């Protein structure tokens, strides 16, 4: 018995120039809001961008983007609906309100199914919002989307730094491409994140300041993109472009 879905995943992603998985070992560090805002920032720079929410049991990018009532578009698979200029895919297309209780094997199966049936059009970037932890989703992205770059999110908290360090160790061991680490919720100049990255030879992509007005702007695109947070993410988007081009050249 052979699973035929695995055969077509590469083809489904063949029109995507690069996949950027936004991950962190820790929850609550701002992965989803950075993923969503980074996708919008890159789109604002004229890039063709998709956003895939792989946090299957706790999706939240739809709340950040302020979208409601989205349905899958069926055409020889599923065409991701357009949201604020982004091609968008999330399990909320299938279950908007209800909790989705899934164990590991189900998560893995759902990821394979989503990747096998979603027909991404020509994209410069597919941003993947990863769930916290080093579980099925991270391992499946490494297994199934093997040219993905990982962009990790940390914070000045030593707890976040330690979990990010563990994820980095795993990615380095598995030789998964790492774009770098961004420090979120930075209050003042902190050297902790930079120092721990230097030890591992991983790039520090910059800091995003703590913005007390961010929560109020979630779901409202005009407000969101005017926050200090979004301005820092625009700088991150420029840094991402620079680093990607460097990696392509080297």
């Amino acid at each position, binding site marked *: 018995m052979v699973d035929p879905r695995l055969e077509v995943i590469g083809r489904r992603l063949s029109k995507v120039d690069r996949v950027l998985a936004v991950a962190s070992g820790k929850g609550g560090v701002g992965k989803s809001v950075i993923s969503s805002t980074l996708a919008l920032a890159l789109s604002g720079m004229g890039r063709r961008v998709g956003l895939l929410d792989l946090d299957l049991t706790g999706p939240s990018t739809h709340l950040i983007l302020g979208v409601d009532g989205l349905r899958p578009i069926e055409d020889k698979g599923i065409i991701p609906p357009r949201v604020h200029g982004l091609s968008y895919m999330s399990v909320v297309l299938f279950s908007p309100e209800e909790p989705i209780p899934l164990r590991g*094997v189900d998560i893995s199966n759902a990821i394979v199914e989503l990747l*096998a*049936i979603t027909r991404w059009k020509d994209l410069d970037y597919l941003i993947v919002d990863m769930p916290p932890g080093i579980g099925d989703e991270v391992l499946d992205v490494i297994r199934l989307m093997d040219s993905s770059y990982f962009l990790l999110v940390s914070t000045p908290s030593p707890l976040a730094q330690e979990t990010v360090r563990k994820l980095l160790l795993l990615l380095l061991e598995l030789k998964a491409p790492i774009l770098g680490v961004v420090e979120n919720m930075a209050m003042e100049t902190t050297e902790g994140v930079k120092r721990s990255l230097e030890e591992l030879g991983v790039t520090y992509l910059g800091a995003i300041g703590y913005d007390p007005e961010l929560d109020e702007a979630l779901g409202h695109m005009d407000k969101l993109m005017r926050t200090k947070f979004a301005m820092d993410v625009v700088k991150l988007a420029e840094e991402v472009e620079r680093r990607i081009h460097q990696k392509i050249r080297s």
Partner: protein
Amino acid sequence: MHEWALAEGVISTALRVAIEEGLEEITEIVVMVGELQQVDRDAFLFALEQLRTQAMRRARFTIEPIPARLRCRVCGEEWFFKREALDVDEAEAVHFLPEMAHVFIKCPICGSPDFEISEGRGVWLASVRGVRMVG
């Protein structure tokens, strides 16, 4: 047509298996289709026919439906999935993503959504038969 995406996977995988097994012509492709996903048999067959390649020009497509057997991880109850248990939107969600069953289906005895899908989840390539290359 979501069935098209699944059929593409079947055709690609069958071609790979045929090459690995040294088949110069494929005569039969057997696909097992779990009832949980509610694949439309006619739409699926149509897609397979449209995607048929030269190496499988005379191949017969055999589709074997597999009842979806569910087993509760809490109380051990086993039962079979019934399409009628879902409304139209729920059935469509499970059709696209069978794991959505955990949202809409509960154990008939204890009410838990924590069950395993022990059989009949999705689409599987069961066998590829054909004529082997000589020499």
